[in-house]
């Protein structure tokens, strides 16, 4: 093997504390890192989302004989919320649990960066993964039932982003609170709860009264209703109470996640 010519850059090692790197530079670098890791799976996730959307919109449709436009609209406009929830509450915890098992989580926490920025970079990437689900669900429903939407764009964008951030933050919190194996188990239970026991794809009135009030404080129904109001703005309206519930869950998820990142055992 021939010896390469080594051109070592001038190194200036100071004994003192190095300058603080700009937050924007750190965030962009972390984003590049996280995006590279998630990049390979992004097309796959969109395919999975399309399949899930088809499963919910077409498959659940089979459960309702002679489905009318109203029911089809309700079912279809709940699907985006379910997709975003599945990304946030299932894929995110599984990803974080895997990072904890492999040592990646610890590796990143030892980096010379403010640790909340690690969460911010993660949130950004998961948002990029989750949000196409809304578009995919809208397209699948349009192809299946052919009804028209009445978009309230600002509300739709705000509700989608808030739902995705909330689901990701809560998913992250689950993964840092529970041991990795338990976290993965919890996500499986959550899928069933979101799909079958949450009034996202079926009306709240189908549930017993006590369960309806449980869903007033859980984030699933409020998220579903807000997104629906953004898609069918002539028939549904968003409520401030739903917004407040979503924001509270968002803050809980973020606070737990940041605490876990910053904490020294």
């Amino acid at each position: 093997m021939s010896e390469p010519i080594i051109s070592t850059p001038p190194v200036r090692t100071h004994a003192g504390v190095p300058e603080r790197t700009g937050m924007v530079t750190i965030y962009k670098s972390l984003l590049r890192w996280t995006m590279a890791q998630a990049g390979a799976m992004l097309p796959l996730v969109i395919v999975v989302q399309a399949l899930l959307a088809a499963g919910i919109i077409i498959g659940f449709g089979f459960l309702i004989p002679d489905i009318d436009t109203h029911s089809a609209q309700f079912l279809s406009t709940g699907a985006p919320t379910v997709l975003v929830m599945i990304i946030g509450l299932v894929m995110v915890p599984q990803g974080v649990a895997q990072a904890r098992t492999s040592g990646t989580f610890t590796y990143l926490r030892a980096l010379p960066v403010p640790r909340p920025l690690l969460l911010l970079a993660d949130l950004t990437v998961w948002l990029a993964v989750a949000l196409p689900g809304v578009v995919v669900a809208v397209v699948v429903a349009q192809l299946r039932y052919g009804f028209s939407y009445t978009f309230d764009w600002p509300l739709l964008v705000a509700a989608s982003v808030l739902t995705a951030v909330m689901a990701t933050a809560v998913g992250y919190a689950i993964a840092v609170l529970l041991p990795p194996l338990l976290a993965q188990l919890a996500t499986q239970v959550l899928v069933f709860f979101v799909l079958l026991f949450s009034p996202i794809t079926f009306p709240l009135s189908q549930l017993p009264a006590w369960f309806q009030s449980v869903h007033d404080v859980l984030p699933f129904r409020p998220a579903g209703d807000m997104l629906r109001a953004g898609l069918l703005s002539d028939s549904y309206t968003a409520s401030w109470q739903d917004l407040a519930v979503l924001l509270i869950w968002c803050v809980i998820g973020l606070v737990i996640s940041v605490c876990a990142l910053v904490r020294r055992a």
Partner: protein
Amino acid sequence: MSDAVLEVEALSRRFGSVVANDHVALRVRPGEVVGLLGHNGAGKTTLVSQVVGLLRPHGGSIRVAGVDVIADPATARRCVALQAQAQAPLDGLTPRAAIEIAGRLRGMSQADARSAARALADELDISEWFERRATPDGGGLSGGVRRLTAFAMAAVAPVPLVILDEPTNDVDAARRRRLWETVRRLGDDGAGVLLVTHNVVEAERVVDELVVLDRGKVVAAGSPSQLRGTSDRDLRLELSLHPDGDDPSAAPADVPIPIARRVRVGRRVLLTLSAADAEAAVAWATTLRSNERIEGYALAPVTLEDAYLAATADAAADSTATREEAAHV
């Protein structure tokens, strides 16, 4: 205030009833490469985890470049570049991108990070894979190239303290040598380097100072020659015992030559003796072997490994001791 880039004093950390670090003290000065040696579970990684603010000490103090790690862990982390024992998360990245990102996170300009990454790739001879992407489940790049990339990520930007935790795992012999040369250069450039390893032979070549940890305690510290503790003319006679066989050197009266140090490690006995007694030692060992009291013997110069094994011999003899520390870090 001292000029040390790492100053650890009376550091203690427990995991339940297991004491992983017991009043550990060590110091790394600028330009110095300090080896932290110890068996698995000796408390090395626990110590490193406390320096970078992953674990909170139960007692003692740590200062990095004058910064109190316990009071201000975020600032202290800016002064430390760590190559962790676990593989760095490189999936989806090329070595070039990974090293550049590490440089950017430490405030290097895009151009500086790029040229430093390229220079390190040449220095470590990984240019061949510089643009190859690591894929999940260990694809794309071999374990050795990943390890060298992680090393380059720790070495790319000038920082007061570089901590390397088993940096040569999975790395081939030729590139190991290059890595050690780079470690030496980091020191020569003015950084303090804490090299965590259980590979005594490799460490001996590169370190200025050594600290030996055993069951959380510092059992020996000093320069390699101080630790060897014997003159360069001393020799080591290694006796290989039969399984369940007696140790013919157990009683000093049975050994016909003066022995400076005797260490038993499993079925091996290491005897340190003066070069002047070599002939008598060989005669004695030959007799032992022909009488079938030993399987074989070897005579060689004393190495640092002998001193290391002597310092940690108690642990080797008591291999059933509970070691839970590794499971916690």
